[in-house]
C-alpha cells in the first residue's frame, strides 16, 4: 500500500503539528505527500493551506503571521485561512487578481494538535473521553518522524506476539512466547480489542504500574480507529490507568510522524512526566528499530502472498481486510510497487 496513492486516505483527519509549535510562527508539514503550511489565526485556531505562494511559488512556511493571516516571506503576499490572497502590499490600490489563492484544507485544534483533513472527511476526529475527564492528566510523549509505513505501527500496536522478542529487555517475557489472545469486537470504523497480559515488573517500572510485585498484569482495552490512530488502554491491578493514544500520521509512502500522548489518573508527584516519557521511550525505541527495517510498501491484499501469517496476526489481518474493503467501496484498488 502506497499511502500517497490511496485517494481514500485523503478523506480522514490526521494529527499534524503540536499547537505549541505554532505559537512562534508558521510551520511546514507534509501530509500524504502534500506540502502544507500551518499557523494560528487571529482566534488562535490552527489553519492549513498548500505551502506554495501563487506569485513566485515560494513556501509560505518561510514567511510570518500577521493579524491571523499568513504572509509570504518573499514579497509579502498575504493569505487568509481560506487560502484567498487578501493583500498584495506593493499595489494596495489595485485589485487582487481573480483566482489568486492557494488550496486550503480543513484544520481543527484537538488534544493539543492541529488536525488536518485534505478532503471532506468520512469520519469525525475520534473522541478520546479521557481528555475531558478531570481525573486524568495529559502528557505529550513523542513527536518524531519514522521511516516506515503507518500500517506497520498500527499493526504492531495490536500484536501481542512481538513483546517477547522486541521488548525482551523490557517488559516482554522471552520464555513465554505464546501470546495471550485478544477478544476482538469489530466496529464500523475499526475495532476494539480486549486482553489480559502478564508482564514482568522490574523496580524501574514500579511507579508506572503502581505496584512492587515482581510480576503484574495489564488489562488492555485497546481500539483501532481507521486508518492510523490507536488507543492503548491499560489498567493495572493497582487501579492505575495508563492510556496512550498514538497517531501514525502519513508523511509520504516511506515516512510517518509518530504522534503519541498519554493520560494518567495519578499525579506528577506519584510518577513524574519525565519518568513516564523515559519509560515509554525505551519501548518506542525498540519498536522503531524493528519497524524501520520492514518494507514500507506494506501489502494489504493478502491474496498477493507477499507475507506469511500466523494465528496471532489476526488484528493486523483484520486491519488489512477493513482497509481493502474501504478502498474498494471507494472505487480504488490497493496501490503498490
Amino acid at each position, binding site marked *: 500500500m502506497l499511502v*500517497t496513492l490511496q485517494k481514500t486516505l485523503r478523506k480522514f483527519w490526521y494529527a499534524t503539528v503540536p499547537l505549541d509549535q505554532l505559537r512562534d510562527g508558521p510551520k511546514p508539514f507534509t501530509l500524504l505527500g502534500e506540502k502544507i503550511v500551518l499557523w494560528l489565526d487571529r482566534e488562535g485556531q490552527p489553519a492549513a493551506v498548500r505551502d506554495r505562494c501563487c506569485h*513566485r*511559488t515560494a513556501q509560505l512556511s518561510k514567511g510570518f503571521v500577521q493579524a491571523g493571516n499568513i504572509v509570504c516571506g*518573499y514579497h509579502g503576499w498575504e493569505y487568509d485561512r481560506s487560502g484567498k490572497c487578501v493583500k498584495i502590499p*506593493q499595489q494596495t490600490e489595485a485589485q487582487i487578481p481573480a483566482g489568486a489563492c492557494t488550496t486550503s484544507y480543513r484544520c481543527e485544534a484537538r488534544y493539543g494538535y492541529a488536525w488536518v483533513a485534505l478532503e471532506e472527511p468520512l469520519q469525525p476526529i475520534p473522541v478520546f473521553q479521557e481528555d475531558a475527564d478531570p481525573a486524568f492528566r495529559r502528557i505529550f510523549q513523542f513527536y518524531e518522524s519514522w521511516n516506515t509505513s503507518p500500517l506497520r505501527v498500527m499493526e504492531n500496536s495490536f500484536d501481542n506476539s512481538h513483546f517477547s522478542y522486541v521488548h525482551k529487555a523490557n517488559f516482554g517475557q522471552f520464555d513465554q512466547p505464546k501470546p495471550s489472545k485478544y477478544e476482538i469486537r469489530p466496529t464500523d470504523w475499526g475495532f476494539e480489542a480486549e486482553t489480559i497480559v502478564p508482564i514482568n515488573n522490574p523496580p524501574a517500572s514500579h511507579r508506572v504500574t503502581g505496584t512492587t510485585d515482581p510480576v503484574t498484569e495489564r488489562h488492555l482495552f485497546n481500539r483501532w480507529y481507521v486508518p492510523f490512530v490507536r488507543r492503548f488502554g491499560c489498567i493495572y491491578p493497582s487501579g492505575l490507568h495508563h492510556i496512550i493514544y498514538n497517531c501514525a500520521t502519513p508523511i*509520504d509512502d516511506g515516512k510517518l510522524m509518530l504522534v503519541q500522548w498519554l493520560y494518567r489518573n495519578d499525579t506528577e508527584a506519584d510518577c513524574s512526566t519525565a519518568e513516564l516519557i523515559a519509560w515509554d521511550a525505551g519501548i518506542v525505541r525498540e519498536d522503531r528499530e524493528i519497524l524501520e527495517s520492514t518494507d514500507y510498501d506494506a501489502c494489504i491484499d493478502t491474496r498477493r502472498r507477499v507475507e506469511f501469517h500466523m494465528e496471532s496476526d489476526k488484528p493486523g489481518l483484520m486491519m488489512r481486510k477493513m482497509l481493502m474493503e474501504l478502498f474498494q467501496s471507494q472505487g480504488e484498488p490497493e496501490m*503498490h510497487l
Partner: protein
Amino acid sequence: MLVTRQKTLRKFWYPVMPVAMLREGPKPFTLLGERIVLWLDAAGRPAALRDRCCHRTAELSKGFCEGDHLVCGYHGWTYDRSGRCVRIPQSLETAIPANSRVDAYRTEARYGYVWVALEEPLAGIPDLPEAEDPAMRHIDQFYEVWRCCAFRLMENSFDMSHIAFTHRTSFGIVEQPKPELMRIEPSEWGMETYVETPVRNFGGVSESVTGSSGERTVRTMRGKWFLPFVRRLGISYPSGLRHSIITCATPIDDRSMMCIQWCYRSDREEDVPARDIIAFDRKVTEEDREILESTDFDVCIDTTRRVEFHMETDKPGLIMRQKLLALFRAHGEDEAFEAAAAPARAPGERALV
C-alpha cells in the same frame, strides 16, 4: 523551464570555477547536466573535456595532470586539451585507435574564473569595466551550490519588491513595501536598470560597508542583466563609495545552480577588510537563498501558461521571461517544462510496477 533541455542555453559562456581551485589538480563540474572535467595546462590555461574516459568510462577528474595533458586515473590514457587521446601507456608501440577521444569545450580564464561554453557561443563573456579600473579592488565572495533554478536568482536580483520582506531583518524596510520605480532599458542581450532606494543601515559592519552613518542611507543601483544568468549591480552610496556586485547563476542541472559572486570596491583593505564585506553580503545572500530554494525549480517563463500570478513590480522578471522565450523561439525551440506537476514523492522513490 528545464534548463538542461533548452539547447539554446548551451550557446553561452558560464563561469564554472575559480582558476585557483585548479592549481591542485583536475576538478569535475556539471554544467547544464553535462559532466565536464577542468584542468590547467602547462601554461596555466584552463581546459575542459567531457568527464568520461573513452576506454572504460571512468571520470577523468579522478585522474591527474601531466604537462599539458590530463591522465585518466584508471589506466593512464592521456588526453590533450582538444580531447584527443595522445598516449596509451600499455601499448606505446601500437597506433592509438582512430576516434579515441572525448568531447572538448571552449574555455577561457576571465576575472579569476574559468568560463566554459558547451557550444559555439552567441554572445561574448560579459564585459566588466570595474575589472580594468585600478581604483577598484576585487573580492571573491561566494561559490556554493543552491537548490533552485538559475533563473530565480537572476529575477530576484532585479526585484525591488522582495527587499522589504525577504531582507526585513537586514536592510529591508518592511513598513515600506512599495518599492521605488525602476527605470528599465532592454538591450539586445539583456537589460539595464536604474533605481535609487532608501535602505536601512543595519548596524554591525553595515556603516563601514556603506560608508555612511545613521539609521538610513540611499543606494543608487545600476543593474545590468547579461543573458542568460549573469548580472552586474553597481551600487554607489552618498559617501561616494562604489560597490559593484557580479552574480552568476551557473546552471548545474534543472534543480540546482552554482552561485558565484564577487565584487569590486572603491575603498582599500585598510578601510574595510574583505571579510567584513563578505559578512555583510553573506547575511543578505542567505536570506535570498532560504526563500529561493523553496520555489518550484521548473520556473514558468511562458506566462500564457498562467502558472504564476504577477504584479506591476515584477516587470524586470517578466522582461527576462519574454527575452528568454523570444531567444529560444528564434533558435527553433519552445519552453521545455514538466508536462504535469507530479505528486510529491519521497526522494529516490521507485516507479510503480
